[in-house]
Structure formats: structure tokens, C-alpha cells
């Protein structure tokens, strides 16, 4: 006979959950553990246990005091999962209710509601970042971003429904204490019920403005570093969907390292200063909560500075990331960077934790801290996942193949039309293989609207053409591949590409052995990468 089983169910209504736990116990199945909606059950005497649920003091944790207290009461803590605690007691010890008076029941439901409110707000952050991601130029961004935003929106609506349900329960309980039930609430005010108006405004502003505010400070950090190092800022686009800036006039690798790091450092410096100054006057809950939310998110931006060097030590790099560029330019050992980042993280976290009562008022310090720990962990996981999945910012890619009957004919091969929506620097790579020596491949990048040549490059067999980062304004571009099999082809290509004599290493070409007979084939692939 089976003595153990696993059941999967997703439910975040605590009362329904408790009812189900007790139904299972009635049937002789005692829940012994939970993980991500999967319940482990073990056989027990029918009705052996009474189950109850409670709200944890933090995420995935209860204090030693709570544990001890429950043990003393003969109550067993079955599982602590997320904000929920599942408890049980032998039915032989009598009736088991966790909350026995109206006041403490109200406190409990208010805490539950707060969990949904905070998590719902974070889902709001998910919706916003999903939308921004969808607007960026990364490969597949539209699909992924929309999916993330839609999912976050769905979860938010489910939470909202739950909050409305809890509001109903709380109104009924308050009614029993003789308090007048609050008037009918719309969905938005229902979501934030029980919070002070200023807190709500701070919360919404924090979540909504954080991405733009961070981008602004980040790019500003780069700019200040460029100025300090004596360079010139040539472009500053903190509000484009993928924020970036351009600069010139720096020499040596050290200034570049400073510029790379400054983007991350300025926002951290600003929030540290704000946290130090913040006295938390009760008159400005909006400001306090706003600072709290923004610093909570900003702190998690240190995490990539730990994860990326670790990835680097494991052999995974992406040359277009600030952090990789910094590692390259500074020549620092990744371990040193990890150590530095961990120190900064610990220091700012200490400062943040000390200020939690000031920033978030009555919300439990433990709860905020565990939310922050969760955010930091998530940031780490997302960074690592992005890295290992090869998160190069590929804008377009594909394969091409061309067969020429007679080498010696001038040949334009394939034309790829690129629609650049976001101005910025792009690099293209063309990897190709040509089946015979004596044939040259050429690439041209043209701005169709301006009718201008942007870039060209050519190479013999099996080599790669890599353009330097070229600045592309929004508009239509074409990338054309040519197969050059004779001196005439070469001359034609030179004419199209607008090469001046001496522009190219043309002198060598006079001695080039064209071997211009028979069919030829080129195959290859191209990749166009956006470099922020």
C-alpha cells in the first residue's frame, strides 16, 4: 500500500488551503512538506492532525522565538514556504485554532494583505520592465518582453482579486468591532487599502520611475567619468529604450576602466548618500518609501559585478558588457572585482537594513530584508542565466550562400534589409567560407535613405569580416554580400564601395592570383550586434 504521495496544487487563498489540508488529514493523508506548489503527503490515522496556516515573519523564515513558542504549544511547524507557514497539532490535544479573537485575526489578515500588496507591486515592476524590454532592440525582445509583461499583469490581477477578497473579510471583522465598513472601493484603491496615501504614491513612483532614474544616473556616471578623464561626450541617450552614451578622446586603458565602472558606481553613490542623509521625517512618507524602493532595486545592480566575474572565471564572457569591458581595461583579477563588489554590497545592505524602519515605517524589518534578499538572488540568477544563454545583443543574423557559374562575372549576391529603430552603435560580423582560393568576398553596408555608404570590408576565403562599431541612426540599411572573382570584379566593387586609390591595400591586389575559371561557391553566416 502506498504510504507517501505528492500532489500539485496552486492556491494562494490561505483559508481554502487550510480547508484542503484538513480534508486530506481527515482522509488519512498528512501533508509533510511543500515546495513550489508540490505537496508531499504521508499516511496518517484519519483525523490524526489538525492543520492551520500562519503568515511567516519573513520570506521562508520564522524566528527562533516563534519556533520555540510553537514547540512549547505542542504545535509542529510542517513547512515554511514563501510567506506561508503550515502548522499542525495532534487532534487528541483538543481544538486547534491559531487566532481566537477578532483583533488578532484582523492583524493576521492585514499582514496577508500586505504580502499580496508588496508582491503585486513587484509584479507591477515586472510589467514595466517587460514593456521596456519589448521596446529594446535585442533579438526576440518583442516576444519575450510582451510575454513577461502579460504574465506579470495576469499575476497582478490574481493578486488584486485576492486583495479584494481579503478586504471583504477585513471589513466584516472590523464591523464586528463596531467599526464602520469603508465605502465601496474601486480596484486601484482596493489594491492599496490600509496604506497611507503618501505611502501609495511613493510606492507607485518608486516602481514606475526606477528604470528611467537608474538609466539616467548610470549614463550620467559614464559621462562624468569621461569629463573627469578629459574626454568628450558625443552622445547621451539615457531615455532611449536601451540607454547608452558615446564618447571620444580617451587614451590608455585605465580611463576606459574608470568610465566602465562609473556607470554602476554613480547610482550606488547617490542612493548611499540619500540613505545617509534621510532622517525619515514622518511628514514625508512618500519620499521615504520612494527612496526605499529605489535603493532596494539599485542595491541589486551590484550583483552582476559579482556574477559576471564569476562567469568570467568559468570562461564565459561577453565583450559588450560594462563589467567585461571593465575587467579587460582595468586588468584587475576577477577575484579582486568580486571581493570589491561583495564589500560594497555588504556595506550598502547594512546601511539599508539600518534605515528600513525609517523608510518603510511599520512594515516588519525582517519582511523587507527577506524581500531584498530575494531581489538580490533573482538578480544573480537572471544575470547568470543571461550570460550562459549567450546574451549577446544580436540584432539580426542569418546564413547566405551563392554559387557563381563563371567566376569573373561581377556578382552582387544577397541583400539584407535592416530596419534600425534605435540609434546606436552596431558591429557586424561575417563569417564565410569560399570553396576556392582566388576569390574574394566583400561586404557593403549602405544607408538607403541617405544613399550613403556606411561601411565596407572584404576578405579572402574562410576569414571573418568584423566591422568596427559603426553608429547607425534609425532608418533602413542594406547589408550586401559580393563575390569577387576577377580584377574587373574587384574594380567594380571598389567603385561601388567608393574606394579611392590607396584607400585600400590595393597595391597587393595587383599581384593577386584570381584563378578566374569554373564555378565557385561561398557560404557563410552574418551577425549584426548592437553595442550599447
Amino acid at each position: 500500500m502506498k504510504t507517501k504521495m505528492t500532489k500539485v496544487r496552486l492556491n494562494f487563498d490561505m483559508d481554502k488551503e487550510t480547508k484542503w489540508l484538513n480534508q486530506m488529514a481527515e482522509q488519512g493523508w498528512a501533508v509533510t512538506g511543500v515546495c513550489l506548489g508540490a505537496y508531499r503527503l504521508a499516511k496518517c490515522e484519519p483525523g490524526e492532525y489538525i492543520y492551520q496556516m500562519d503568515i511567516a515573519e519573513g520570506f521562508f523564515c520564522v524566528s527562533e522565538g516563534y519556533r520555540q513558542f510553537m514547540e512549547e504549544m505542542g504545535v509542529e511547524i510542517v513547512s515554511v514556504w514563501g510567506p506561508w507557514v503550515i502548522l499542525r497539532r495532534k487532534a487528541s490535544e483538543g481544538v486547534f485554532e491559531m487566532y481566537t479573537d477578532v483583533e488578532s485575526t484582523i492583524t493576521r489578515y492585514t499582514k496577508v494583505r500586505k504580502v499580496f500588496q508588496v508582491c503585486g507591486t513587484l509584479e507591477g515592476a515586472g510589467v514595466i520592465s517587460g514593456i521596456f524590454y519589448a521596446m529594446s532592440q535585442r533579438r526576440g525582445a518583442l516576444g519575450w518582453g510582451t510575454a513577461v509583461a502579460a504574465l506579470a499583469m495576469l499575476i497582478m490581477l490574481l493578486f488584486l482579486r485576492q486583495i479584494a477578497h481579503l478586504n471583504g473579510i477585513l471589513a466584516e471583522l472590523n464591523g464586528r468591532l463596531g467599526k464602520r465598513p469603508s465605502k465601496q472601493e474601486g480596484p486601484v484603491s482596493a489594491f492599496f487599502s490600509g496604506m497611507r496615501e503618501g505611502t501609495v504614491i511613493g510606492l507607485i513612483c518608486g516602481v514606475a520611475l526606477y528604470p528611467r532614474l537608474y538609466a539616467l544616473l548610470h549614463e550620467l556616471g559614464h559621462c562624468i567619468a569621461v569629463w573627469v578623464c578629459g574626454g568628450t561626450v558625443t552622445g547621451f541617450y539615457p531615455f532611449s529604450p536601451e540607454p547608452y552614451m558615446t564618447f571620444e578622446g580617451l587614451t590608455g586603458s585605465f580611463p576606459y576602466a574608470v568610465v566602465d565602472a562609473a556607470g554602476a558606481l554613480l547610482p550606488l553613490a547617490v542612493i548611499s548618500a540619500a540613505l545617509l542623509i534621510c532622517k525619515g521625517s514622518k511628514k514625508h512618507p512618500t519620499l521615504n518609501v520612494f527612496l526605499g524602493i529605489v535603493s532596494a532595486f539599485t542595491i541589486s545592480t551590484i550583483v552582476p559585478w559579482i556574477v559576471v566575474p564569476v562567469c568570467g572565471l568559468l570562461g564565459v564572457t561577453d565583450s559588450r558588457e560594462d563589467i567585461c569591458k571593465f575587467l579587460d581595461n582595468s586588468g584587475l583579477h576577477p577575484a579582486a572585482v568580486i571581493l570589491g563588489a561583495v564589500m560594497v554590497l555588504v556595506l550598502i545592505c547594512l546601511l539599508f537594513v539600518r534605515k528600513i524602519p525609517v523608510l518603510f515605517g511599520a512594515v516588519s524589518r525582517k519582511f523587507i530584508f527577506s524581500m531584498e534578499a530575494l531581489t538580490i538572488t533573482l538578480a544573480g540568477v537572471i544575470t547568470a542565466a543571461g550570460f550562459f544563454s549567450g546574451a549577446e545583443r544580436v540584432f539580426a543574423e542569418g546564413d547566405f550562400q551563392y554559387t557563381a557559374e563563371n567566376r569573373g562575372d561581377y556578382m552582387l549576391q544577397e541583400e539584407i534589409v535592416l530596419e534600425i529603430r534605435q540609434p546606436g552603435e552596431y558591429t557586424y560580423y561575417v563569417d564565410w567560407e569560399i570553396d576556392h582560393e582566388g576569390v574574394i568576398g566583400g561586404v557593403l553596408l549602405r544607408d538607403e535613405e541617405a544613399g550613403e555608404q556606411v561601411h565596407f570590408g572584404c576578405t579572402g576565403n574562410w576569414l571573418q569580416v568584423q566591422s568596427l562599431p559603426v553608429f547607425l541612426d534609425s532608418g533602413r540599411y542594406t547589408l550586401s554580400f559580393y563575390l569577387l572573382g576577377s580584377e574587373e570584379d574587384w574594380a567594380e566593387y571598389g567603385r561601388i564601395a567608393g574606394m579611392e586609390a590607396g584607400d585600400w591595400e590595393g597595391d597587393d591586389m595587383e599581384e593577386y592570383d584570381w584563378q578566374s575559371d569554373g564555378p565557385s561557391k561561398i557560404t557563410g553566416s552574418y551577425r549584426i550586434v548592437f553595442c550599447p
Partner: protein
Amino acid sequence: MKNVPLTEALFYILLSLRKPNHGYGIIREVEELTGGRVVLGPGTLYGAIQTMTEKGWIRIYSEETDSRKKKLYIITDLGADIFREEKKRLEELLANAVIFEEDAGSEN
């Protein structure tokens, strides 16, 4: 700050902490005092103890390093003052409640 009226749970917890008592002892005593009418749930009691400790109405009586020993709590002077204030309030309520019977009686 307004400390009274106390909730029934807080009132009885303070009362049973006039001498050192532990969690389970509080539940038993309150149950006995009320003839089984008030049985405190572990969640209610835990929350009340936390709140009252924070407010300084009660304190830990014995900080046993041995974790198997039960934690004992006792009322503080502040807690005792609040209890007396509540008692005064309750006496007033009771004294005034007499009026109800008197008036109800005189109408007959």
C-alpha cells in the same frame, strides 16, 4: 498614547503574568479563569506577547540558555499601571451598568 481599553486577550495575558508564567501556562490559566470561555490560540498569544514585550508592558523573566527550557514572562511596572488603568475603566463600566437595571426596574 491611548493604551486602554485593552482587548480581552491582552487583559487576561497581563493578569496571568502577575507572577512568572510561560506560554502554555498563560493559556491554561486564562482558560481556568474564564471557565473555558476564552481559549487563546497560539497565534493570538504569540502576537500579543511580541507586541507587549516591544511596548515594555511585559518582559522575559528568565533568559534560559538551554533552549529546551520554557521561556518565562512577567508583567513590568508599566504593564501593571496599564492593567490598573483598565481595571478603573472596567469598574466605571460596571458601576454605570447598574443604572440600566435600576431604570429598567423602575419602569415596571
